[in-house]
């Protein structure tokens, strides 16, 4: 459900209101995407796009987490002792 693909913001086309748009690059091809819901993004950010509109920015810091965790596991012989959190916790 809800195919959402990350692409990189290369250019703002229009930054105001419900018609705001930016050019997003997906591995070599670009498309103008509606940005009404992600107005705060900057050129260079990765944007999650669904059905032609941006639904979020990709959080670059959070994106690294899993790899850091896996790296820790790999470094640490006893990695299975210090079980990593899979994600942030909200009770």
């Amino acid at each position: 459900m809800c195919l959402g693909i990350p692409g990189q913001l290369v250019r703002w086309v229009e930054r105001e209101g419900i018609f705001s748009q930016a050019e997003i690059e997906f591995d070599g091809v670009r498309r103008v995407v509606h940005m009404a819901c992600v107005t705060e993004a900057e050129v260079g950010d990765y944007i999650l796009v669904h059905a032609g509109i941006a639904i979020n920015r990709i959080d670059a810091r959070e994106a690294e987490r899993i790899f850091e965790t896996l790296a820790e596991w790999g470094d640490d012989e006893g990695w299975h002792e210090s079980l990593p959190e899979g994600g942030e916790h909200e009770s």
Partner: protein
Amino acid sequence: MKYLDEYRDPAAAQVLLDEIRRVSTRCWTLMEVCGGQTHSLLRHGIAAELQGTVELIHGPGCPVCVTDQADIDFACQLAKRSDVMLTSFGDMLRVPGSQGSLLDARTRGGQVRIVYSPLDAVELARRQPEKQVVFFAVGFETTAPATALAVKQAAQYQLDNFSLIVSHVRVQPAMESLVESPDHRVQAFLAAGHVCTVMGYQSYDRFVARYQLPVIVTGFEPLDLLQGILAGIRQLEAGEAWLENCYSRAVQVAGNQSARDLVQEVYQVSDCRWRGFGLIASGGLSLREPWLRFDARARFAECGLPVILNSACRSFDVMTGQLKPPECPHFGKQCTPETPLGAPMVSSEGACAAYFRYAGV
């Protein structure tokens, strides 16, 4: 592609797989809510690798599959009118209503056009003022901001030739109706990542508290899925049940406030018929008062049709995890992608189609 390919890394996946096997003391039953997750699990071989370790059952998360037949029939009726251009996502075209699919309607002369975005349908309406452009708005909360934006743009352009068949559904009421059933088998949920991107996941607090089931917000790539499964199993092994976000690069706790505001402004929560489920309280969205002029049902009031339900399809059981698709007596026999008895066989996200494609018949 950045943020896709690295999450498909086989070596990293193998590490997570091993960890899942290591921590599991028994075979837990997890439901992946979203059809996209189902496809990814099968396509990337995860379901096969985890056989015997974890039981993955498929949830109601394919908006195409649960779209009410009456809506499809209505869309087909409109498509056949010479003044109407019916637009929708490619996904909807092969799903059968009681009288055939939109593709059938086109084969019989109806005008049906695929768009990539609801905003593209607004553009079509602007460029073809002599046509009534109708957008068949299916999808969960993920898609609702796009269609809400389409409505607002159409209003701004003062288009009187654009309207929607609103068939948006809400995922959480369906999960609730599912666990309210006495014979459900779900021990933890992988919540649908992109719905949460828009809506956030605060609303699951009450769900977790009430049903005491782990809920893990989960993405769509192999590493995302494995991470979500691992988190669920750890909770289960620890006898815990809490709300956890394993898709934090795309999901914040409150979701996307602008997108939620947009949905809130244009739509209201309403009861809704889900195909295979029946009426689900608060299970869908409908246009609010100020936007009712964009409602295709009102504009083409004369086109309603009685619904003929196909009772042979076991989609309710499949979509509530009671039945694996190959266990359906029709699967692969009367029911194939060419001759679907039900929506889950025809939508590219449907669980039956996923099994038919990836599991081999």
